[in-house]
């Protein structure tokens, strides 16, 4: 039995390590000069560690990662806060009030969750061009906020139904209004669910490529995901630069995952992965 356990451990860990080899490769390519990795990053007779690749993409003349990082934050933070707040209000409305067509309206919203991004982008593109919101951060934030609503509403509604109604009723007897109850009682009690959703929504927006590709066209507005393909190089693929940019781009979502991975996985399992 001991040997069996050992074998399972070896196989399991071997697979897990094999799974990360591509990431290890990219990391190796990002910290070494181009000549050392173009023939294979696994050749380590010559191994020079350098941060030049990171510096090169961070300060790239047309599409610097530094500005892309700032843009990604400027878009991902409001695109996380706005839909969560709006969805929390709506989810609470669905759970605690009854009104005509409530269940049908809720189901309609949930169905929207599975829409491909391609189904909304053309009219949004035309609308935002008319309103002067195209190629602005606000235009992208509005779209992300709206597109994230359906799954956040579903997730929070499922969570709110588990909250004890007695606390809210007691507050109502003490004279609290609906909105006071929502802000002072329901939201604080929902903190774990709100964190799970923030983590997922932030990463989703940060990782999005398609919406940004259509709605942002000036390099000074580019987000991180959009910037990477731009750094490809003109005559041959700059693996060193692409690797450094890739590591930078994934560092943020990875950091969020590492710090809050319990909340992250709860979000993935509790609702579903969006996308």
């Amino acid at each position, binding site marked *: 039995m001991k040997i069996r356990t050992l074998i399972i451990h070896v196989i399991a860990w071997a697979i897990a390590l094999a799974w990360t080899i591509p990431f290890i490769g990219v990391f190796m390519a990002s910290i070494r000069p181009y000549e050392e990795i173009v023939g294979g990053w696994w050749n380590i007779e010559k191994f020079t560690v350098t941060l030049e690749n990171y510096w090169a993409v961070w300060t790239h003349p047309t599409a610097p990662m530094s500005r892309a990082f700032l843009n990604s934050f400027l878009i991902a933070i409001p695109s996380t806060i706005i839909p969560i707040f709006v969805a929390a209000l709506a989810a609470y409305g669905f759970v605690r009030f009854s009104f005509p067509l409530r269940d049908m309206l809720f189901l309609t919203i949930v169905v*929207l969750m599975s829409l491909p991004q391609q189904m*909304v982008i*053309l009219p949004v593109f035309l609308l935002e061009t008319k309103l002067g919101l195209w190629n602005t951060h606000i235009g992208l934030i509005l779209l992300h906020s709206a597109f994230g609503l359906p799954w956040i509403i579903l997730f929070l509604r499922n969570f709110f139904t588990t909250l004890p109604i007695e606390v809210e009723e007691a507050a109502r007897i003490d004279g609290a209004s609906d909105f006071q109850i929502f802000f002072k009682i329901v939201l604080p009690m929902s903190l774990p669910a709100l964190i799970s959703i923030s983590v997922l929504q932030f990463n989703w927006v940060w990782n999005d*490529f*398609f919406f940004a590709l259509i709605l942002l066209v000036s390099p000074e507005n580019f987000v991180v995901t959009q910037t990477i393909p731009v750094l490809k190089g003109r005559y041959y693929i700059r693996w060193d630069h692409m690797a450094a940019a890739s590591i930078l781009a994934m560092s943020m979502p990875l950091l969020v995952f590492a710090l809050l991975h319990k909340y992250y996985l709860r979000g993935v399992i509790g609702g*579903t992965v969006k996308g």
Partner: protein
Amino acid sequence: MRKTPFLFLLPALILLILFVIGPTLFTLYMSFIDWTGKAKGFVGLKNYIEIFSRKSIINLEKPPLSPPPRGALIHNALWILIHVPLSTVLGLVLAVLLRNVKGGTIAKSMIFIGMVTPMVVGGIILRFIYDEHAGIVNAILRTAGLGWIARTWTAYPDTALFSLILGSVWIWTGFCMVVYSAGLETIPDELIEAAKVDGATSFQIFRHIIVPLLKPATIVVVTMSVLWVLKVFDIVYVTTLGGPGGASTVLAFEMYMDAFFRIPANYGTAAAIASLLTLITLGFAVYVIRLMVR
């Protein structure tokens, strides 16, 4: 009738109508309009007839089992047929394998990284590992004595699509594993211990206890995988731009090409492709939605 519920719902409804519901209906409307450059009027099913007669959407002249390009619709179908069984089985096996392993949480996180990473980065990594000289896939083949087939796998029509499909399995399996791991936690240890006492082998336990009890998890895994695969765009855009010669194109990418890449742009056919993709997606989504609305 109190007004409060509407105040709670109002902001969400405004955002949804302006940026999701309205645009969805308008895209559907656009798919019946001749819209090349300018909107020129209602044309009935003309856009749909056009996309279905395009070789880049569906190429029926090629015999079955011949290499791509076979058209985006068929590529999407192939993607589902290959990706979904692979990632589902791998996810299940990994979840079971890592269940009682020391440091299993860390090992699982390592496999899950693909899901946390931007898909664009996933695409760059795929292009990198498949590269003829810089890619590890070819280094492994050379070590195994298969150096003669080494090449940039994403650059040839007969291998580009399948390379991307395998890559997408690598990216996505972490999701399947995590859902199955959560499902495994609901199976009481006593049940498995009892089976062991009765003399059941590990495989029998897996086949007759674990797999049947994980059926709800399997439904979620399969439908979510199908939905994810149908929407594949980023890795195609980054690695091959649908090429070479349309050999790795998919519906989402063809929609992008019609609307934002080809000159002149054809919004009518782009909207038709988007509507077709949505129709297929909704068909699969109904299953998973029924499970999620508790």
